[in-house]
């Protein structure tokens, strides 16, 4: 076997195998509830691939993807940012309120979009930065502090999003939301899917950009190397000259800034205001990052798969199949993938060790050794 295959084959087999296992477990759940798995899956695929569904899947995966990347940035250096939820809710509220605020109305629309996005990133980074500061100065685990900050952020948003403060009540509705953004700072859709009546949210461009930037910064810059080294072996990273505290701070700020972008596709391209329905993607984003193994492409595939399952679940109700089956699928997929990757990693490493070991125990060690390809 040639070198790339030794490493790649198990890694490619892992997600496919995991998906099959998840499908099998879901089938068992379906059979227990007296449903035919074949019918359920085929109707899901049929419905999920309709043009209208494709648009909806793409739109949903924008937020999932950005959230997944935000979590993955933390994961890459062993930081567990569970606070994406609070970070983006606060970010979205701040961006929506300031974007619609009268004192910013003189800005031309495009610039105002930039300012809105910037505000969201700064607020997201700020909220994550609180956890980072606590960790660096007081040694508080970011797992605990980000969870707590989710609650604080949630309460803060609920308090501010009332008619006494930042909220307004739409006519003929009980919903309280921020005022609508001016029309010139709405971003338009992209007619990406032929035959679909709706358009894909224009913010998808930013999501792709986030993915490219994530790949570039982590894989091609010194900063990215320091970050990855810290995640793989903190003590080695320190010995190599990484300032561990500063790295925690930077990584957390970056993760929070990206998290701040999660609500932006909805704000700029769909609802044009911060509503009470914003929130709840933070934990899904953790699952997406795990599923995508922190890789920019992997997270994209994971987000698309998740969105597909979310969307195609809608048809199950119509066929009188409990749509909770999809939740089972999503859960088992994450578990199966995590287990499968761990297995693949071990098998791959053992293969490589064997090959390295073969190099060591060549008959005459003084001779430069040839490795059979």
């Amino acid at each position, binding site marked *: 076997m040639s070198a790339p295959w030794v*490493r790649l084959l198990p890694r490619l087999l892992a997600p496919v195998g995991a998906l099959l296992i998840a499908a099998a477990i879901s089938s068992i759940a379906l059979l227990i509830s007296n449903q035919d798995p074949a019918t359920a899956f085929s109707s899901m695929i049929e419905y999920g691939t309709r043009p209208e569904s494709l648009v909806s899947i793409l739109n949903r995966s924008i937020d999932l993807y950005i959230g997944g990347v935000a979590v993955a940035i933390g994961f890459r250096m062993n930081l567990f940012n569970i606070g994406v939820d609070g970070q983006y809710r606060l970010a979205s509220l701040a961006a929506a309120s300031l974007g619609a605020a009268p004192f910013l109305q003189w800005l031309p629309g495009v610039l105002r979009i930039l300012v809105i996005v910037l505000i969201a990133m700064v607020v997201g980074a700020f909220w994550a930065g609180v956890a980072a500061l606590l960790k660096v100065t007081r040694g508080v685990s970011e797992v605990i502090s980000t969870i707590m900050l989710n609650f604080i952020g949630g309460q803060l948003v609920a308090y501010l999003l009332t008619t006494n403060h930042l909220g307004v009540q739409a006519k003929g509705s009980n919903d309280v939301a921020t005022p609508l953004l001016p029309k010139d700072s709405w971003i338009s859709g992209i007619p990406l899917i032929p035959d679909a009546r709706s358009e894909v949210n224009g913010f998808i461009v930013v999501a792709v950009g986030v993915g490219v930037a994530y790949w570039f910064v982590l894989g091609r*810059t010194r900063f990215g190397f320091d970050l990855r*080294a810290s995640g793989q072996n903190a003590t*080695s990273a320190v010995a190599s*000259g990484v300032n561990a505290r500063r790295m925690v701070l930077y990584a957390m700020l970056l993760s929070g800034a990206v998290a701040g972008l999660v609500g932006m596709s909805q704000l700029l391209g769909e609802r044009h205001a911060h509503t009470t329905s914003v929130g709840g993607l933070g934990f899904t984003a953790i699952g997406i990052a795990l599923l995508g193994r922190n890789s920019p492409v992997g997270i994209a595939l994971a987000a698309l798969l998740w969105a597909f399952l979310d969307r195609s679940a809608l048809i199950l109700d119509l066929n009188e199949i409990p749509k909770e089956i999809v939740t089972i699928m999503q859960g088992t997929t994450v578990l199966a993938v995590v287990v499968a990757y761990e297995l693949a990693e071990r098998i791959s490493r053992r293969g*490589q*060790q064997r*090959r390295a070991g073969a*190099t060591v125990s060549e008959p005459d060690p003084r001779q430069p050794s040839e*490795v059979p390809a």
Partner: protein
Amino acid sequence: MSTDAAPAAPAAGADEPPAVQLRGITKRFPGVVANHDIDLSVRRGTIHAIVGENGAGKSTLMKTLYGMHRPDSGEILIDGDRIVFHSPQQAISAGIGMVHQHFMLADNFTVLENIVLGAEKLHGIGAAAARRIRELSRQYGLGVDPEALVEDLGVGDRQRVEILKVLYRGARVLILDEPTAVLVPQEVDELFENLRQLTREGLTVIFISHKLHEVLAVADAITVIRRGTTVAAVDPGEVTPRQLAALMVGSELPSPEARESTVTDVPVLAVAGLSVRTAGGRSLVEDVSFTIHRGEVVGIAGVEGNGQAELIEAIMGMRPSTGRVTLDGVDVSERGTRKRREAGLGYIPADRHRQGLLLDAPLWENRMLGHQTEAPNARGWLLNNRGARRDTERIVAEYDVRTPGADVPAAALSGGNQQKLIVGREMSHTPKVLLAAHPTRGVDIGAQAAIWEHIKRARREGMGVLLISADLDELIGLSDTLKVIFRGRFVAEADPAAVTPEQLGLAMTGCG
């Protein structure tokens, strides 16, 4: 003396089966030297030494005997009965106990608590257990007080606690893995007296070491392991150290000697009044000052844990300290680790897995580590992955790193090859001063000679070296100046041309 690989029949008492017998043990193991066709026969009531170079497969063999993994083939006989161990628990109940090289004691527990931990069912955790410990201590002359707090004990006492821990669990066969590595010569003598007492009481001791004079002093029988297999069973009364060394290495021993002096009078690293304290204010390094000149190797002798690790970390800027560090005329005291590295400090850490490598990352990323801001690894803020990859291939060739390529993860390499990669990496940036902690620990003899050669060459070219090593021969052989560290202070200086390991060992205990 027989160099026969199969000492099958026990030498004495043919009616009595050997306490431990291994027949044809083979263990394949990815990445490290495996055991093959191991034959070993240990008589009851003897000290049986197993000698071999680092990496020859001694520890693998002992782990097999202790049930930590199962051999691929071959059989283990205890008192003549075939036994298959699936876990150390089974080995313990068969009367085999292991005293590890690194002590596994909880400092803030008493001796009693440490000994009963995990064996509470035997005699409880109270007076009965303490009585049993005193009884064992008296029987075997160990002099252990069950009420003492482990953190108050010296290294030798801790080792006796470890031995007692094993005896308490009913061991009849004790395996000691490199027991003298952490001891100074005087403590070694005490240990040997303890071991003789154990065998007088009918116990059997298997003693793993690569220190020949110790083995010859204490063992009743010796088995030599080389490249994973038993190559000879010898009687200590009939071999000379040189013969034994030749059996171990299979050729003549290389020597770290670097006598021709290259020391100049140009200081390159000056440390003045350096002190390191724990967060709690306890002193680890106390007011240490010294100067390294261009072309000079300054060796620091000391029993592990006397502040040498902290001293090196402080000079690297990894640990907060007071005092001044001047590198080539520039005060770097206020700089972080990265700036110090860029200014010309190279670092070979004592524990390469903890401070020297990213085990899951490919070799070329490991080649970047510690030098990720310098060419050929980076261009400005960007990484130069291709440059690093190409340079890794150069290091692999020049430093004889045995690997299928630069893309395999560091974890796939054996310890010696990992170390060669680290040495190659640090040398590639022509450091002004190299801080080398145990640079040849755990590497095979060929790699050891190569690493010495690289250090000597760089020294000729004007590099200064701060060398820490537990191997006194290496320390004496390589150093131009020797300092002895004890409880965080320099307590003595020695001339490496005149000092013997025994004198150095005495000074290391603080009595020098």
